[in-house]
């Protein structure tokens, strides 16, 4: 990371761990619950958010001095919605298969509170380059949690990873299933995503006591 100054590095690295949007700021939980039943969906969603948050932060940052403060939330919403529609249309025209995979998630990106949160908290007060780094950092921090949750939910819930049967075949009873292992169907339901996120929060805070809020 020799290219970036210490301060800029912090923008990328902080959201990955000690200022993670999901586990510390508790933003973007809705999509973390909704789409993490499969690892592939988690990865695709992470990449989409990476794009929208990176570009969106730059656009908002460039406009930060001319946006009327009374309608700034609406302006932010329009920027997100426009970006999402552009992504959706371009994918439909040039990568149709991928756009079908993404169908549900594209709409979900707009409702992701991390995006509006970063526009409001960072891009409105910082230059485009720093805003870009902040957007990338937060999207990566979001993606890391999504992928961890997706990994465990797909592995324990369906016995597969990215669709590959890594634990053997549950119907033919091969691999782990031969010795009596069963998939935990409960992992596929949204409440278990909340519990997995909870476990991550627990592990993270017990390793770094400074993160524990005092009440």
């Amino acid at each position: 990371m020799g290219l970036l100054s210490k301060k800029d590095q912090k923008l990328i690295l902080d959201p990955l761990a000690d200022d993670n949007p999901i586990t510390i700021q508790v933003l973007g939980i809705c999509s973390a619950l909704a789409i993490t039943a499969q690892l592939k969906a988690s990865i695709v969603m992470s990449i989409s958010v990476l794009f929208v948050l990176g570009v969106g932060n730059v656009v908002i940052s460039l406009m930060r001095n001319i946006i009327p403060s009374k309608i700034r939330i609406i302006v932010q919403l329009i920027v997100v919605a426009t970006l999402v529609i552009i992504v959706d249309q371009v994918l439909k025209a040039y990568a149709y298969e991928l756009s079908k995979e993404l169908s549900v998630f594209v709409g979900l990106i707009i409702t992701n509170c991390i995006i509006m949160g970063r526009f409001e908290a960072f891009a409105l007060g910082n230059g485009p380059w720093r805003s870009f780094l902040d957007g990338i950092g937060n999207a990566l921090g979001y993606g890391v949690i999504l992928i961890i949750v997706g990994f465990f939910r797909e592995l324990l819930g369906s016995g597969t990873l990215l669709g590959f049967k890594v634990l053997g075949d549950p119907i033919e009873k091969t691999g782990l299933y031969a010795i009596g292992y069963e998939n935990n169907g409960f992992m596929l339901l949204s409440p278990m995503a909340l519990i997995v996120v909870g476990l991550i929060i627990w592990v993270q805070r017990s390793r770094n006591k400074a993160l524990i809020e005092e009440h």
Partner: protein
Amino acid sequence: MAKTDGNGYTVLFATIMVVVVGGILASLAQGLKPAIKENERFEKQQNILYAMGVNENVEGEGSVNFIPTDRVEAEYKKYITGSYIIQNGKITEDEGAFAIDMKKQSKLSKSERKMPLFIGERDGQKFYVIPMYGKGLWDAIWGYVALDDNLIVQGAFFDHKGETPGLGANIKERYFMDDFTGEKIMNGNKFAGITVAKGNNDPVNNTKDDNEVDALAGATITGDGVSAMIKSTLKAYIPHIQNMK
């Protein structure tokens, strides 16, 4: 008070923003429309052919493989021998069947509704490919079911707009669609359809005369939607297919 706080400025900004964003999106949509329309046409051809077994699925492997888009147009012409429209109890041969929008038709009353039917032929066998459109848990589901002369399902393809990934979305997985192949839609002489059933104790679907396929865990409402869609659609087609053989 900064200059950006005034009412006049706010209204001006909003107006310019709306015009700019509207312009960008409208020109983008116009520019990409032909490419999107073509993709949608290829997809429909792929789906119809998939249902009648013209696909590149590998035996024993679990993924859905369509005829590639660069060949689908030619393959479609080769395998689909007739397109029909059924309306108000009458059936007419009509090339326009392909262009029928199932979503729009589903909103019309029964007497106004146009129902497309595609006839295909592969290795000397005749297939009746029936498009269908219904409701899942969150949004629309649709599909194509191919029947033979004996009204036995020879293949099925399902898709959805927004079912839950990992649950209802699995109706487009092969292990669900393959279960329909060989299944009867008649029970004796009576129409029964096919029910997506929980707890029928037949997870690999060995029994083909029970009018039931095994349901997806955690996707009850999507499964019920598939059952309802199959029942209501096929029922309307059966008399016509029986007359045609």
